[in-house]
């Protein structure tokens, strides 16, 4: 469990995090607005992602592997193929048993698959080329309320410590109760297991409360008076504006092509 950041000396890594954040958002909106059958635009979007992956020296393989995360969730859209609107195509599987496949439903399913896959690749690229602390700074500069950025800032600082504590708890449990082979349908056993897990969650919570006391004391002793260090209010440089404009222009152009040529 670690941050998905691929350190490379590329120009894309250097771009202001605000630019990347806004560009990804625009890209996702344009991709979502495309009509279902805009296959040409999908291919252009994919090639845009490919070239960004190459230019950032992250490599497409990493992005592709990570993007497969979206696969299990496609299950939610799968019923569209069989229960979508008419016209249906019947395929006779065995004698008298027919499989109805909805044509528009299948198209829509394909479109959802492609769109969500494109979007997750864009998000993966953002995470791979931008350190999360930079994203938080960008959020501060984009005027996300201070409470949020403070919570997220502190959360990020202690996240991996808490994850290690959770892993310790899990390791301790498995080393003590080994692998129990009682029937999984044994209700009392199941409830006992759940209660143990609950105890672990409770102790994780209490530990985090105690840690937050210590953190607060440490912060106070260093002069904390209600606010974390604010981010510098740097305006975007001319170059970054150009990059942002260019990026949005390309994404918009692909959208227009999809709108005019699609379907």
């Amino acid at each position, binding site marked *: *469990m670690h941050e*998905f950041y691929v350190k490379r000396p590329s120009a894309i890594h250097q771009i202001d995090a605000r630019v990347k954040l806004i560009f990804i958002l625009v890209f996702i909106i344009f*991709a*979502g607005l495309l*009509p*279902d059958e805009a296959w040409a635009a999908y291919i252009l979007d994919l090639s845009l992602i490919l070239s960004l992956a190459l230019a950032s020296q992250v490599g497409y393989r990493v992005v592709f592997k990570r993007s497969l*995360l979206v696969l299990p*969730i496609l*299950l*939610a*859209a799968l*019923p*569209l193929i069989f*229960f*979508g*609107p008419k016209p249906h195509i019947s395929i006779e599987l065995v004698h008298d048993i027919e499989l109805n496949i909805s044509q*528009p439903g299948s198209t*829509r399913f394909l479109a*959802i698959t492609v*769109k*969500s896959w*494109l*979007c*997750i690749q864009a*998000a993966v690229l953002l*995470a791979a080329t931008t350190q*999360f602390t930079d994203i938080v700074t960008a959020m501060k500069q984009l005027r996300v*309320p201070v409470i*949020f950025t*403070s*919570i*997220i800032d502190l*959360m*990020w*600082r*202690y996240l991996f410590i*808490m994850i290690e*504590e*959770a892993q310790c708890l899990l390791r301790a449990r498995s080393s003590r109760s080994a692998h129990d082979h009682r029937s*999984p*349908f044994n209700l009392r056993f199941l409830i006992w297991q*759940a*209660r*143990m*897990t*609950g*105890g672990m*969650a*409770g102790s*994780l*919570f*209490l*530990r*985090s*409360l105690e*840690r*937050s006391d210590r*953190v*607060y004391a440490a912060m106070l002793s260093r002069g904390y*008076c209600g606010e974390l260090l604010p981010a510098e209010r740097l305006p975007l440089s001319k170059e970054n504006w150009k990059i942002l404009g260019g990026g949005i222009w390309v994404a918009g152009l692909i959208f227009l092509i999809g709108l005019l040529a699609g379907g």
Partner: protein
Amino acid sequence: MSHFPFLSPLPMHIPDGFLSILVSILFWVLSIIILGFALRKTNQTIGERQIPLMGVLAAAIFAGQMLNFSITGGTSGHLLGATLATIILGPWAAILVMTSVVAVQALVFQDGGILTLGANIFNMAIVGVFVSYAVYTISMRYLRNSKWGTVVSGFLAAWSSIFIASLSCSLQLTISGTSPANIVIPAMGAIHALIGIGEGLITTGALVFISSARKDLLQNAGSAAEVSKGVLGGGVLLALVLTVLAPLASSHPDGLEWVAEQHGFLANARDAFYQIIPDYIFPGISNPALATIAAGIMGVVIVFGVAWGLARVNKAGRGQKSI
């Protein structure tokens, strides 16, 4: 996938591309309005000491979602944590903490989309916390503040928060034309009714542990003295609306499904863009695209107005009471 021990096999974290742009933006607006209230509330009530508390607790909830126990067939029960956060922190702070958790999951670990983040925040942070709070408070009132009361109320709150959040999630998928209502709502509901049992059991386990180790933490939660009427009413309302709407939508596919069809299928290719809310075309504007945009803006304004009005009424009520 070893980096994602907490990744749920179920579509509670909606990825980008699964919700239509209109639905995504609508839920962003709704979530931002409610988060705005949560910010104002917490700004009034919390001290500077609460910031590190919320930050570290958010990290703990994120990590706590890794804790699981195996049930048959490769499935496992695990924790979302909205109920625990609500009981320990109170509703408004819990909303902020859960929002931070969901946002980091989306931005760093791609668990849930960026544009759909608004909808995910709505389901997991807002619906989860509101429903938890309403169920816990009401149930505690009937069961008094006994230890058994805490256990039973905690279980009920955790179960209903998961179940109702899943209904909200499946309704969003249906409105977007991603899944047929008569399939996805019963399926999601049934699966999450089971997952909710796991959440409930873990939550009660945690509550029992906390009540024997640090009883003081549970004392102030849900006590009649500082019940937040707004959250209570909101939670009850959300629970009622969603439980009524979901079966209605799945048994009358021509209801919500109709929206989905208008929105997704009927319009092919180019028309799809112009027919986002086709029958709501504005009178007096002949250009269909402009009319649609106007209709969309109107919809957002109406939602905003209703939310604002509710809050005003709510605030006025509270004001009188404090005098």
